[in-house]
């Protein structure tokens, strides 16, 4: 299951990422489902746009957020999102 840093990530087919004004939160919408995303999860999902590698996403987050665990937290979120089928590998870089 482990994704390599070279994996280019995108949202899975049928998934949509958007801001919900009524809930004041970002969400992922998919067939008959919706998940609310916290701020850091939203920053990761926003970058899964078919143009960035996992490594690049982690790098960018390191610049936007401070803290010792940013990288580990991001990796574990990406793994979970991948296992749940929210995001997929667009292609190998």
């Amino acid at each position, binding site marked *: 299951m482990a994704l390599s840093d070279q994996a280019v990530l995108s949202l899975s*087919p*049928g998934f*949509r990422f*958007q801001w*919900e004004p*009524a*809930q004041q939160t970002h*969400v992922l*919408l*998919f*067939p*008959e*489902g*919706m998940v609310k995303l916290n701020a850091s999860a939203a920053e990761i999902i926003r970058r899964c746009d078919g143009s960035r590698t996992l490594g690049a996403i982690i790098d960018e987050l390191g610049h936007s957020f401070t803290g010792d665990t940013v990288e580990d937290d991001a990796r574990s979120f990406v793994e979970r999102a991948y296992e749940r*089928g929210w995001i997929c590998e667009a292609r190998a870089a």
Partner: protein
Amino acid sequence: MSEDGFAKPAPPKPLWLLAELTYACPLQCPYCSNPADFDHYRDHLTTEEWERVLVQARTLGAAQLGFSGGEPLIRRDLETLVARARALGYYTNLITSGWALDEARLGALKEAGLDHIQLSFQGPQQQLNDRMAGAAVFEQKLAVARLVKRFGYPMVLNFVLYRENIDRVAEFLDLAVELGADYVELANTQYYGWALLNRDRLLPTRQQLERAELVANEYRRRLAGRMKVYYVVPDYYEDRPKACSNGWGNFFLLVAPDGTALPCHAARVIPGLVFPNVRQANLSWIWKESPAFNRFRGFDWMREPCRSCPERFKDFGGCRCQAYLLAGDAADTDPVCSLAPRHGLVLEAIRRATAATGVEAAVSDTGLIFRNVHNSRRLTAPLERSPLGR
């Protein structure tokens, strides 16, 4: 809540809007969740009225939108409504039997921004499917499934399970694999509307259910990562009730073809509640203020054993319609719950249905009441309003 020192939870939002565009349907499934008296509600909302509903619900927070029915494809303005919904930011789901959906129509829906299509089957092969649907539609469904795939949609198949097809779950799942489905819902019939009228002939036995679940689990393991398999058990065989609609007026908002706003598919059967109509009132008032949407909202309406039950936050006391339909009182504990004073009614229903399985499968559709205008008129309100099981 407030007496514990906690802030009151945020007011609920209707995140899921189900737009039942019409009660018209070319199929006649005897387990249909539409009310048995659907033929009484003929004055369907216009395109402009639906557009107003979409705007108002979106403002309240609705994000998932199902276009359902009846058969929603019967509405010629479906593309217009999909386009409007998409522009408002909804995730748009089409819940269809696949009837008459061809390449041109699907192209137009895709163009309008439709996000997803859920296609239902009545059986895993033509003979049973078409007999239960009351129409020759199986081949058409296969063609639609291929089209859905070709247009790049995620494929969601819904297989409704009942006594006569539940032993064929493996065939259903093989069909799903062959068609390249991404999600499969094996949805046991829930006993409301037409399904309740036909309960003795539709409810599977416990042994059938257990076998089907084993098969579903085996496929789920085998297909992990390729196809998601959901198995919805019929609540009659559970010890605890389902969290019906995630709580009354908590999450789910249904607008019926005639504009009646409902907290669930079946709520119209409950006597003494006046459900508001979007023609007379704005959805904000309907959702937040109307007496009907507040009647069973939250926990204050509950009696024992629900009132002090730690599980009430999880199941919300089960289903109000089922409490009425089975026990004759919508404020009762859902009789499905083994702690309910009237739980015996569910056991009796199972006993009766199981006794009826002695009837040969070959003649098991004898006596099924198919969902059509003729039967709706024949049965009309009185039957739907008199609770079964009493």
